[in-house]
């Protein structure tokens, strides 16, 4: 009590001693609580800081610059024999159309170098863009259309303001002349930033404006699905066996220590192991979600097992006794009573393990995941890469436009992570109880 209660108390009342020291104890309490709160806030602000940093760098990658040009779909170029044969149309020289369009737009450009600069304003992916349009609608042939064409990454950077137009020309990748053209187009409203669908639908590419994360995302998806399928049952099963059924002796102690120790093995060593065992001995194909999942399973197992064992340990023995006492078998006791109570902890372990697997690069270096794979993987055994590796590769690319794409890819990875965690968190909440 904050006040000393009624006077006239017997001489040495415990409460007096208590009250005397109360202030100090409360100071300690407040301090403790404050430290706790600061810890949470600190932790959360790290998350915030990282997110803010990443979003600030990456948000602009979600839009992409397009340049509008009147393109004449010259029949002579596209379909010289007039057959409208899709095969012929597919092989036609669409580049030509774009170059023509550019030259008509900027008639003054004649110098060879200048023409090159001019052509390079439009992405090398633009011809494909045109081809798809023509294939979808062959009637375009012979007409002139205003088409929004994908801009090259340098122009994209310039339009987004990542290249400072105020710098001296020799310190810029985009030269004055190109800046002039861009400004001219901007004045005409022929430059627009649109939502970057390519980023979400394409596989990777050397051209930043064509590079997408779909391949890596699918790779991560397949990898994680498999990892979860392998690691969760194995981890939980192993934890249950070791904690609940295995006889407690030196041998199981050794296993426990050993599992703890596996968590400290550098992840790249798991890559070595995967290379030696899964690829060399069992012939699992390289660079596939399957082999990645196997390696990541081995890597995440300790996390899941340790967390699950801790969770099992915290279930009071009386619950087990109660179940055994009415004739439940040990396995039933586990499945009906202990497991539901330990599930939140197990799920936490799984969340963290999966998060780790999702963000891991090092072991994948060893098993061929650090690769340029354009095709979007279609299954567990098609060659693919994963998000963190894609990020790793993009981060190592010279092109400036990859900087924002790297951050955007990180954002997608984090979104993936959050989505994944959300499911587990919801599950976890269903199981959580205090008694």
């Amino acid at each position, binding site marked *: 009590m904050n*006040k000393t*209660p009624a006077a006239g108390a*017997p001489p040495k009342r415990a409460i007096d001693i208590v009250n005397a020291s109360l202030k100090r104890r409360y100071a300690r309490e407040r301090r403790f609580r404050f430290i706790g709160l600061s810890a949470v806030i600190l932790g959360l602000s790290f998350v915030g800081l990282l997110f803010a940093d990443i979003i600030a760098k990456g948000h602009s990658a979600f839009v992409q610059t397009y340049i509008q040009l009147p393109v004449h779909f010259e029949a002579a170029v596209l379909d010289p024999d007039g057959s409208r044969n899709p095969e012929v149309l597919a092989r036609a020289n669409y580049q030509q159309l774009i170059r023509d369009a550019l030259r008509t737009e900027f008639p003054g450009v004649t110098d060879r170098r200048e023409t090159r600069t001019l052509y390079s304003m439009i992405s090398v992916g633009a011809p494909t863009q045109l081809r798809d349009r023509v294939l979808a609608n062959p009637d375009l042939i012979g007409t002139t259309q205003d088409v929004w064409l994908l801009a090259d990454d340098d122009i994209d950077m310039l339009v987004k303001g990542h290249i400072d137009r105020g710098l001296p020309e020799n310190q810029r990748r985009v030269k004055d002349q190109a800046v002039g053209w861009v400004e001219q187009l901007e004045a005409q409203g022929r430059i627009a930033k649109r939502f970057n669908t390519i980023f979400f639908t394409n596989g990777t590419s050397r051209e930043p404006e064509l590079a997408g994360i779909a391949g890596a995302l699918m790779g991560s998806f397949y990898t994680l699905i498999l990892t979860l399928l392998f690691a969760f049952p194995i981890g939980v099963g192993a934890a249950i066996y070791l904690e609940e059924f295995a006889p407690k002796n030196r041998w199981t102690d050794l296993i426990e220590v050993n599992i703890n120790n596996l968590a400290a093995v550098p992840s790249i060593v798991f890559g070595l192991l995967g290379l030696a065992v899964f690829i060399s001995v069992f012939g699992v194909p390289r660079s596939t979600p399957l082999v990645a999942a196997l390696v990541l399973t081995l890597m995440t197992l300790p996390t899941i097992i340790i967390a699950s064992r801790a969770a099992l340990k915290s279930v009071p023995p009386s619950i087990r006794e109660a179940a055994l006492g009415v004739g439940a078998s040990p396995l039933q006791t586990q499945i009906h009573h202990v497991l539901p109570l330990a599930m939140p902890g197990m799920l936490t372990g799984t969340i963290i393990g999966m998060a780790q697997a999702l963000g891991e690069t090092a072991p994948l270096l060893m098993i061929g995941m650090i690769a340029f794979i354009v095709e979007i993987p279609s299954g567990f055994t098609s060659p693919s890469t994963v998000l963190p590796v894609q990020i790793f590769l993009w981060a190592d690319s010279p092109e400036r436009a990859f900087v924002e794409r790297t951050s955007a890819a990180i954002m997608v990875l984090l979104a993936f992570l959050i989505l994944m965690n959300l499911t587990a968190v919801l599950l976890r909440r269903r199981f959580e109880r205090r008694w």
Partner: protein
Amino acid sequence: MSTTLDEMTVRTRATTSAELASGRESRETVGDVTSANPRMVCRHVDVFYGSTQAIKDVSLDIGKNEVVSMIGPSGCGKSTFLRCLNRMNDTIDGCRVTGSITLDGLDIYDKGLDPVPLRAQVGMVFQKPNPFPKSIYENVAYGPRILGLTNSKAELDDIIEGSLRKAGLWNEVKDRLDKPGTGLSGGQQQRLCIARTIAVSPEVILMDEPCSALDPIATAIIEELIDELRSNYSIAIVTHSMQQAARVSQRTAYFHLGDLIEVGETNQIFTNPKHKLTEDYITGRFG
């Protein structure tokens, strides 16, 4: 917070929807709920678990140097009421207390009042023994340590031995003070919890069936302890044994379905209960 009993205005009870739902008003308590020399004064206490009401408009005093026993059928709200007296109900989600409870005139449910010293002053022995997962020694030493009641190891050792002796456990555990308290038998755990409580010399002691797991001899020791403690402190005890109530308490309160049916001198309650329900219960005709 210098509210004294005199100044204290008993809060008016609002009829809650839960009460209306339960379809019945609480019963009037028979007998004198007050004590000549009260330490704790409860007035119109209602307790709700979520929307169900477990205690209905109970008023009761606990006097100085007196043992009040609470009896009543299982589930009638004795533990719930007891837990109100040192705000242990705070820890139960969804548990809500209204009405007023004062200790030496101070409203213990006052917003500004801090339950921590209150609980040091109003100790409690729980119905289910809950020893800490520590050694027997540490279990008893815990209270004195955190409250800073001792200055030296020797003093602490004394307190621990004294408390364990009073609880009649010393002989059984003196050789294994460093063994975990959770490895004791049921009755030993119960006595350990009693020792743990008296080690901090609380002025009011709430005991929820402290002898339920004890044999007659151990029970006698605890009853003796209660009698001894009474000379300085106030005690509220929940018990299912009428004999025990009769032996240790000066006043007895009979609870029934959340109502305090009757309060009175222990003698009177057991020999001459006024309320029909009390009588039925005492004579075993109930149910």
